[in-house]
Structure formats: C-alpha cells, structure tokens
C-alpha cells in the first residue's frame, strides 16, 4: 500500500510535467467546456429573442391584392420585403431550396376573387423544414395568417347575425407549469455531459501514459522487476489518474459556476440556479465517476500495444459514459432507484435534480455512489489480473 503511494506520487509529478496531460486536465475541461457551453447558450438566446421581437421581413407574392391583410401583418411585425425579384411559386421554391430565403409567402393569383366569394383564397407558405432557422419564422407567419383568417371569419358571422361561437365551440389555451429552474434543465442537461467529458479528458493521458506509454518507453519491464506487487502498482497508477480526473472536475465546476453568472439564461425564461451549493453537490455526485473512469480507461489502455493505439481506443471509450445521457434526454427519463445502478446515467439524473433545485434523495445518492464505486472496483480488479499476464509485455 505504501508502495502504491510511491507510484501514485511519481505519476502525479511525471504527468504534471507533461504538456499533453496538463492541456487535457487544466485546459480542455475547465476552459473549453464552459466556452462551448456559453456559445451554445448565446446562440440559442439570440435566435429566440430575434425571432420573437424583430420585424420579420418576408417576400410576399401577390400582396397587392390584399391591403387589409398587408396592414394586419404589418401590425404583427411581418413586413413584405421589397425587391425580392420573385415572380411565382416556382421562383420562390427555387429561392428557398437554394437557401436564399428562409420563408416566402405566396397569395394565389385569384386570391382576391376567392376571398370575397367562397373562402378558397389560398396562401402558400414556402419553406424548408430541415432549415432550423426557418422554424420559428414559419410558425409566426402561420399564426398571424390564421389569426387574420379567424378574425375575419368571426366578423363575417357577426355581420350575418350568427355568434362566432357557433362555428368555434372550443377554445384551446396553453398553461405551462414549468418553473424557470425546470426550463433551464433542457440546456443545463448538457452540463453533466460536459462535466463527464471534462473528467474523462482529465485522466485520458494519464491512463495512456501509465500503461501503453510505459510499455512504449520500455520502462515497464524494469518497473515490473522491482519488489512491488502488480496490484499495488496498478492501484497507484489508477489513483493518480483518479486524482487528475477529480482536479479536472473541480476546475470545470468552478469555471461553470463563474461562467453561468454571465450567461443570459433569464432571457430564455430560465433561472441560472447553478450556485456554489449546487457545484458542491455536483462534486459529491460526480466524484465516484473518477475511480470508475480511471479503472475503465486503464483497463482498455492495458490492451493496447502503443500510445497511438491507446489514443484511438480511449477516444471511443470516453464516449461510452455519455451514451446513457443521450438515452435519458431522448426518453425523458426521471430519477428512480433502479436507474441509480447505472453509472453516468445516475449521476446525470442527480445533477439534473440539483439544477432543478429539487432535493436529492440520500438513498438514491448512496446507491448511485456505491454501484459506481463497486463497478470501479470490478474493473480495477480485471485490470490488475490483466497485468499479471505476461502477454501484456508484448
């Protein structure tokens, strides 16, 4: 055990002098992750705000036939753009397909006739559904047009002495019960993803350096000829990797706690509830991932024969713990005791709880921590077994 400490101390020192390790521990997670996050959120904010408040300029074909519609749309901030040069539906479709326009509104040529006669006056919205920018604009235009149609219909009914309620027996209202903190989970759900990734990156090069790197440098054989058991040797190495992962976690949490203060989350109708307490909680929840990830990465790196091979495989391995997160967000999973047995998923759910400012059940927290630690122990034991095989020397 004392020798494991010697190994751990040496690996900490050795890797503190390695630029690659320092970059991935001190820079990748703590700097890159919050930066990426801030950019994502800023884009989301600016897009949301822009589409809600800004005047929407849309090429509208045949608007001269409908002056009232024109002023109605104008009042709702939808303005016909001048000089769009589009003649007909084909032109418009081509322009949208080419990405020159996000949305074109086209009134049929006989719009005016039908408008007075039979209600078959047709308005076509031309857009590309795969264009994410178009989505909110199309919705806005559609809502405005529908409102105009409905309003006019109601007036016509009244003119004939019929109550509009006759043709509209039902009203649909929205009643959103989400809290600002709850809404922020959509975006902040990605936070766990970044935290996990930052942790794994923090230990990435250590896991390689202490196994495949040691073999490639030819320092493994003399090391194995010193009176340290392979179990102690591996324990020391995995402990060093865990410590770097924890360091990366702490730094990343600090960076996020600071960065989220400056992000315009409230403009999105969300509260940035990620304070110091939440950060401390997230540390407690995520800490067991360190030995788990260290054991997993050390185990995989032990199979590889060179630094490069290890890099390739570990690149895939660090995506592994993020898989449950993808499922969780797709299936909208809520925390439950059985799910606490799944490493990374349980941590994700618990951190999400923290962000929602909901209490974290101690029972769930302990199951999550214990199962993750147990799995770490299992993986570590397999890695140690592997090191007892001489095929390891290659």
């Amino acid at each position, binding site marked *: 055990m004392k020798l494991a400490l010697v190994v751990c101390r040496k690996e900490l020192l050795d890797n503190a002098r390695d630029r690659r390790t320092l970059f991935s521990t001190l820079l990748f997670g703590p700097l890159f992750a919050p930066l990426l996050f801030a950019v994502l959120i800023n884009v989301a904010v600016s897009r949301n705000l822009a589409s809600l408040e800004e005047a929407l300029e849309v090429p509208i074909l045949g608007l001269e036939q409908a002056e009232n519609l024109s002023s109605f749309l104008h009042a709702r901030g939808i303005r016909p753009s001048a000089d769009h040069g589009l003649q007909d539906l084909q032109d418009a479709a081509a322009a949208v397909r080419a990405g020159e326009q996000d949305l074109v509104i086209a009134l049929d040529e006989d719009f005016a006739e039908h408008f007075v006669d039979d209600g078959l006056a047709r308005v076509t919205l031309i857009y590309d559904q795969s264009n994410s920018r178009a989505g909110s604009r199309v919705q806005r235009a559609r809502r405005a047009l529908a409102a105009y149609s409905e309003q006019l219909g109601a007036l016509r009914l009244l003119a004939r002495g019929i109550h509009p309620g006759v043709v509209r027996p039902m009203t649909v209202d929205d009643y959103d019960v989400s809290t600002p903190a709850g809404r922020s989970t959509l975006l902040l759900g990605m936070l766990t993803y970044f935290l996990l990734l930052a942790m794994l990156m923090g230990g990435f090069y250590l896991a390689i350096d202490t196994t495949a790197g040691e073999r490639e440098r030819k320092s493994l054989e003399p090391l194995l*000829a010193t009176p340290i058991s392979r179990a102690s040797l591996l324990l020391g190495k995995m402990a060093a990797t865990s410590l770097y992962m924890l360091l990366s976690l702490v730094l990343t949490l600090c960076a996020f706690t600071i960065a989220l203060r400056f992000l315009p989350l409230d403009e999105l109708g969300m509260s940035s509830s990620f304070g110091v307490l939440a950060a401390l909680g997230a540390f407690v929840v995520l800490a067991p991932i360190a030995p788990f990830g260290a054991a997993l990465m050390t185990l995989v790196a032990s199979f590889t024969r060179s630094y490069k091979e290890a890099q390739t495989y570990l690149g895939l391995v660090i995506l592994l713990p993020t898989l449950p997160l993808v499922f969780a967000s797709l299936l909208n999973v809520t925390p439950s005791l059985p799910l606490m047995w799944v490493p990374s998923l349980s941590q994700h759910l618990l951190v999400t709880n923290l962000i929602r400012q909901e209490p974290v059940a101690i029972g769930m927290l302990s199951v999550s921590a214990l199962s993750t630690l147990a799995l770490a122990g299992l993986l570590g034991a397999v890695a140690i077994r592997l090191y007892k095989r001489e095929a390891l020397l290659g």
Partner: protein
Amino acid sequence: MIQISQLTKHFGDVQALGGVSFEAASGRITGLLGPNGAGKSTCLRILSSVLRPDSGSARIGGVDVVADPLAARRIFGVLPHGAGLYPHLTARENIAYYGQLHGMKRGALAARLADLIERLNLGAIVDRKCQGFSQGERTKVALARALVHEPEYLLLDEPTTGLDVMAARELRAWLKELKARGNCILLSSHVMQDVAALADDLLIIAGGKLAASGTPESLAEAYPGRDLEEIFIEAVGLAQP
C-alpha cells in the same frame, strides 16, 4: 550464485528456450553470448521475474524467482536494454523512484544517491530531465537506478549497445569494480570484444540451448587455434542443424 536449470519457454509456436541450464558465480562476470533470437533476453527476463518459464527452475542467491519473485527482486538489479527511463523526471528522480519502490528510507536513500552520483560521476546531469540524454548518459543513470538498493546480483541486457568508446570503457570499469566488491554479474551481448574484455565465464547459447560454456581459456583449449569469434561461430553452427 545464479542458477538456471532445464529452462524452457514458448511464445506461441516459437520455442525461445529449449532446456537451458547454467550457473553464474558470485564475484565473477558471466557473459551470455548468442546471435539475435538465441534466447539471451528471454533468459534474463525470466531471471528478472518478468516472464515465467514453462518448465525448469531459475534461482538467484538460492531464491526461486518463480515461486518468490518479490524476494528475488530485492536482491537483484536490472539494467534493461534501452534504459527505460522516464523522460519528464530528472536523473535523480528516476533513481530515487526505484529506491522508494525498494522501500528505502529517506535518509538511507539520500546517502545512497550521493554515493552513486559520486561513483558514477553523475553530478553534471543528475538534476536535469532525462529527455535529451545521450545513450551513454541514459545507460549511466539506468545503471545507478539498478544499483540503488545495493543488489548483490546484477542482470544487464546488452549494456554496451549504442555506447561510444569512452562510455563503453567507463561502463566496463564500473562492472569490474562491482565484481571486485563480490557482486555476481550476468550480462548478455552479441559484441565479442565487450565480452572478451569483461567476462570471466562465457555461456554461448543458440536456438534456445547452451552450445558451449567455460572460461575464455578453457574454450580456447577446446577449440585450439581459433579466436573467440571463430569459437562462437563454430559453437553456434554446431547447435543449429
């Protein structure tokens, strides 16, 4: 004394050792000679308890390296082929790491380090990172690292490969000094001159078997009128069908 008896080892379908037996006495330098792939390194790796033999026994100072590797590792030091130092650590840190792995106390380790630095003339490089050391400097540091726990037995795998004339001379001088202190030294090589200049006893192995052994004098008697290189070629040729 280092004793190997009826040692066999396979790597997959390849037979690396086919029943080698030999002894290396204390206070002497024993040279393990053989062409590439003869099984020299495999012998040394089994002795350093990194590999396990398929059958046969290997003992160092009476300790069975297969049955009790931890005890054996306390009494031998290993100079591996290519040194295997940590480039980010200084020479001192590299040596101290092995001292700590041997369980040496802080004070004893510091005294031993000072002694090794003086004897191996490491003063100029001891606090520099090993990255960028010359082959000679690397070998020196690796030798100091192998000697840090004052082992009675020393196993060296091709120690002179890649050394220039001066460094090779220096190394030979230290090995002779260690021999004079009563250490048991087993070194492998395929360079005749090194072995001729150093070894008290010769072991020529080829194809995983012992082809010839004895002192240089006794070998010269057995193969009259031939120099060491000719003896080597003849012995190796006899062992290979």
